[in-house]
């Protein structure tokens, strides 16, 4: 009886885990355990104030502590056959001037240089979506943007990257450091919290509309795979419809304060020397 009981419990648990894994992405909570990280495809918890230096190096303390959400290869309207082909993890932190978004892209073939400007999405690229007033409307307002950052920016000017996107995405003032990694490429971007489109003042509990996409081109021509974080964006309409966005919530939590009293700002300044 006892063995049957254990076997049944194990089988049930395995079944539930399999069901969960097959239909959900992955959330890695903050390293200090203070943030659950939100809910995959629904909410990202963005800690502030935390400052990073844009250089493509994600070993800085905020990125080590921030929650990471991983979009699996089969999440999105254009699934990839396996994780090596296309996967994308992201994290976000903010200070009073910038929303920093880091993306670790797994991509077995980096392809750029065929599409430009408004067509950047046909090459390898990531997209950061902002709905500053969280209106979640069927059409874009002034304060909504799709900011497309191409892998074409690998090694390019961090303060003047080539950007694409709707909602005037290229003119949001976004900076990006893009570098190659062992299994793909990395984007460390900074979206200004104040520009001619929006004025976001982070405070504990403030929510904005937010989404992340990854366009994967394997063989030239049109995009081959499209991974999407927001569970509401089931038809790849975020480029024109903010009802498809998920949420980003600002949470007051400074990761970088350590027993030694080192503040992130201080640490950042040291790093710049």
């Amino acid at each position: 009886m006892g063995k049957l009981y254990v076997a049944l419990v194990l089988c049930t648990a395995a079944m539930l885990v399999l069901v969960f894994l097959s239909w959900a992405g992955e959330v890695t909570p903050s390293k200090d355990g203070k943030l659950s990280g939100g809910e995959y495809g629904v909410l990202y918890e963005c800690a502030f104030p935390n400052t990073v230096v844009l250089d493509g190096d994600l070993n800085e303390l905020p990125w080590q502590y921030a929650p990471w959400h991983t979009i699996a290869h089969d999440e999105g309207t254009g699934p990839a056959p396996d994780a090596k082909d296309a996967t994308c993890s992201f994290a976000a932190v903010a200070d009073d001037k910038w929303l920093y978004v880091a993306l670790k892209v797994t991509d077995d073939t980096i392809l750029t240089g065929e599409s430009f400007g408004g067509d950047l999405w046909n090459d390898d690229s990531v997209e950061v979506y902002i709905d500053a007033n969280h209106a979640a409307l069927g059409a874009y307002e002034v304060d909504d943007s799709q900011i497309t950052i191409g892998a074409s920016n690998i090694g390019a000017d961090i303060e003047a990257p080539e950007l694409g996107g709707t909602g005037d995405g290229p003119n949001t003032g976004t900076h990006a450091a893009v570098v190659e990694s062992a299994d793909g490429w990395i984007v460390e971007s900074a979206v200004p919290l104040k520009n001619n489109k929006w004025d976001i003042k982070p405070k504990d509990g403030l929510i904005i509309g937010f989404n992340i996409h990854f366009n994967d081109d394997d063989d030239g021509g049109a995009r081959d795979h499209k991974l999407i974080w927001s569970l509401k964006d089931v038809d790849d309409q975020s480029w024109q419809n903010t009802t498809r966005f998920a949420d980003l919530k600002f949470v007051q939590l400074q990761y970088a304060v350590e027993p030694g009293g080192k503040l992130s700002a201080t640490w950042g300044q040291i790093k710049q020397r």
Partner: protein
Amino acid sequence: MGKILTSCCCLLLLSSFVYAGECKDDFEDGNAAGWTEVSGDWEVQEGDYVQLGGGMNVMGVPRTIIQSPWEFSDGTIEVTIAFDKRSDGTELPTILYRMIDDDNGYAFRVGSDTLEMGRFQNGQYSNIRGDAFPIDIGKPCRIKLEIQGMFTKAYYNDVVKIRVGDLEETFKKGKVGLAVFDANRPIYFDDVIINGAEVFPFPPLSQKVDPGGKLASVWGEIKTL
């Protein structure tokens, strides 16, 4: 302990029913028993179910349709589709699912350069999402749909290509069908495999009369009255 054991047993039993039913039809028996011809001209030819043309729905949209007798919610649908050698690729062979009647339900269409999912509402088709994807219409292709909740994931020759959802989940359950939208050349359907909770195999032709005495052809005639 007893409650936990009972719960586990219930969950396992429920899970065993999720994909309990399977229907396969390779048309090698020379007939299409089980399918109901809703519109258009269909014929079994050399192990294929061939759509030969004709058909129009209430909105004047040309199409031909056959339907399953049972209803389908979540599960998988697999079909091999071949274009005629004279085809120009515009026929749009289609897999229909969760059809609540002849004019309402989901549709997955295979074009010569697109794969797309949409829905029929009152006979009018609207695209939910399609992706550019050129296919070789000179060769048969295997289409597999995995349908769960609001999501449809589509495979072309065993490679996953598109995953689309309907946020409203407009249709939760309904019949499965095959269709062709622009029937200017024959389209060949073969090796249909459908898995789902309420799916059951088609009976052999000799056992086609069910306890209610309803023949598929009679049902079709009644429907057209």
